[in-house]
């Protein structure tokens, strides 16, 4: 099977026509308030997973009086099953980088940083070449497009193999030369971010969407998707299907429609939102992909009837045990306990009362963990054990009860 290429990609919003520099030109001809207005109109929400309204984030930083401000593009893409940012950065750098320049202009920042995961080192060269081209064309650097008083440049910083550094405060710690341990919030990065300055942290896809919104308008963007989830979304589809890859689909697409499009057969379960998302059984395939229903940063993993869900769950929990930064107890110990529970299940030694205790532990972790990693890692544990009870307890997935 051929891998998809840019020319074959189809989509109504993100993959729609866009000329390099277009958003920057348009933005510089407008006032900051105009841009914020369009953004608010578009109702764009962050594509990194948390879904925070982008206009609100930008407005707070734009209003801050600090002299130094930063724009950070979060390209740490570490959630299992997510690879759409890779496609954007490799094939559509113009969308992402123009989005960053627009952010700089709107919030009044001069410095942009791309935090690129260490695993994507191979992209660094092409991105740097691209930045160089932008500087040559005055789309970056001093007095962009001859606009006096607007200077903005972008540097690339690499991660070094830590999933938690995708969490925005851990990312900032990492940029400051520290261990990537999430900070207590508040204060949020919008007021106290990189080196104490107000900072906008946005996902790659959020910034790419902005380039389209600025050129085509908030109303145009809002035409797609649902009322609460506007625009379209890039979905990274992997697992048991004929055509895995990156798809642009409007928010509100049913899981069953998605399965149809990607050629998935005999599907037993769909993991929406990566390892930290939830696992949806057949009975939930009529649910829609949207912030208000099955929310996701883009990861869709498909499992067919032949797959062992306890094995899938174990793989997820091993991931969290490795990637927990270890700073707070619910997450550091909790994930280990959940993994041990899965091992007991595999051996047929887990009692129902202990299993219930572990589910309670999961709920405690959701509340008591310091950052999103520990708050969401129990999601798959709880949803897989609830939704695939029969498989796991009838001896197909585990031997309990045999």
């Amino acid at each position, binding site marked *: 099977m051929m*891998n998809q290429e840019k020319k074959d990609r189809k989509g109504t919003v993100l993959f729609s026509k866009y000329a390099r520099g277009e958003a920057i030109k348009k933005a510089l001809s407008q006032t900051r308030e105009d841009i914020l207005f369009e953004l608010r109109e578009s109702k764009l929400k962050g594509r990194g997973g948390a879904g925070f309204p982008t206009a609100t984030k930008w407005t707070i930083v734009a209003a801050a009086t600090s002299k130094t401000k930063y724009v950070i593009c979060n390209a740490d*893409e*570490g*959630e*299992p*099953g*997510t*690879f759409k*940012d*890779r496609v954007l950065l490799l094939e559509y750098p113009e969308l992402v980088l123009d989005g960053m320049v627009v952010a700089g202009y709107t919030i009044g920042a001069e410095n942009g940083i791309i935090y690129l*995961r*260490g*695993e*994507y*080192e*191979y992209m660094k060269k092409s991105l740097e070449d691209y930045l160089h081209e932008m500087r040559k064309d005055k789309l970056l650097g001093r007095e962009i497009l001859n606009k006096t008083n607007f200077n903005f440049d972008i540097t690339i*910083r*690499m*991660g*070094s*193999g*830590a*999933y938690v550094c995708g969490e925005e405060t851990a990312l900032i710690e*990492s*940029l*400051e*030369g*520290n*261990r*990537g*341990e999430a900070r207590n919030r508040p204060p949020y990065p919008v007021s106290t971010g990189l*080196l104490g300055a107000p900072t906008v942290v946005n996902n790659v896809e959020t910034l790419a969407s902005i380039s389209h919104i600025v050129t085509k308008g908030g109303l145009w963007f809002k035409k797609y998707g649902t009322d609460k989830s506007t625009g379209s979304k890039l979905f*990274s*589809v*992997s*697992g*048991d299907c004929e055509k*895995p*890859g*990156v798809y642009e689909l409007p928010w509100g697409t049913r899981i069953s429609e998605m399965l149809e499009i990607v050629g998935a057969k005999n599907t037993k379960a769909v993991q929406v939102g990566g*390892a930290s998302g939830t696992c949806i059984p057949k009975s939930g395939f009529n649910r829609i992909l949207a912030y208000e229903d099955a929310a996701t940063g883009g990861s869709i*993993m498909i*499992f067919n009837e032949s*797959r062992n869900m306890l094995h*899938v769950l174990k*793989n*997820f929990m*091993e*991931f969290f045990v*490795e*990637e927990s*930064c270890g700073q707070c107890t619910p997450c550091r110990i909790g994930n280990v306990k959940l993994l041990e529970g899965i091992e007991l299940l595999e051996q047929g030694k887990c009692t129902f009362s202990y299993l219930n205790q572990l589910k309670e532990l999961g709920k405690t972790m959701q509340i008591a963990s310091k950052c999103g990693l520990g708050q969401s890692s129990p999601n798959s544990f709880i949803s897989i054990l609830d939704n695939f009870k029969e498989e796991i307890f009838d001896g197909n997935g585990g031997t309990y009860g045999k």
Partner: protein
Amino acid sequence: MLVFEKNAMTEEIEQLVAKYGNNRSSLLPILQDVQRMHKHIPDFAQQEVARLLGIHPVEVYSVITFYSFLNTQPKGRNIVRLCQTIACDLFGKKSVVKAVERELGITFGETTKDGKFTLEYVNCLGMCDQGPVLLINERVYSKVTPEKAIQILGGVK
């Protein structure tokens, strides 16, 4: 370390500090460059980075130990990383593991005697639509089969 090796290392780190700036925020880029050149960050390098940035060596050590791509002990000249996460796992990770281990005579986590290869597992490499995926140094190889994996390793210097 021999004296002239130490001097060379000091000079190298001085250049990196000059390149990235003499402040704490430069710590990771400096360590990443040392790692790239030496495949690990030796004790002496840690001390020198600490001295030049004006921080305690323990701080440097603590940062290194946090990141899975940085290490204080030497590894092989080529680091072979195999994605262990579910999408790659479903499509034949195990058979690639078996073939690679058999061929190199070591298990994951180890380095070959001649120091040519270190085998490691990594988490999702962002290529889940094309698994199983191998990352050798900075290059990615997708849709790897046992046979293809051995062929790829054969082509590595």
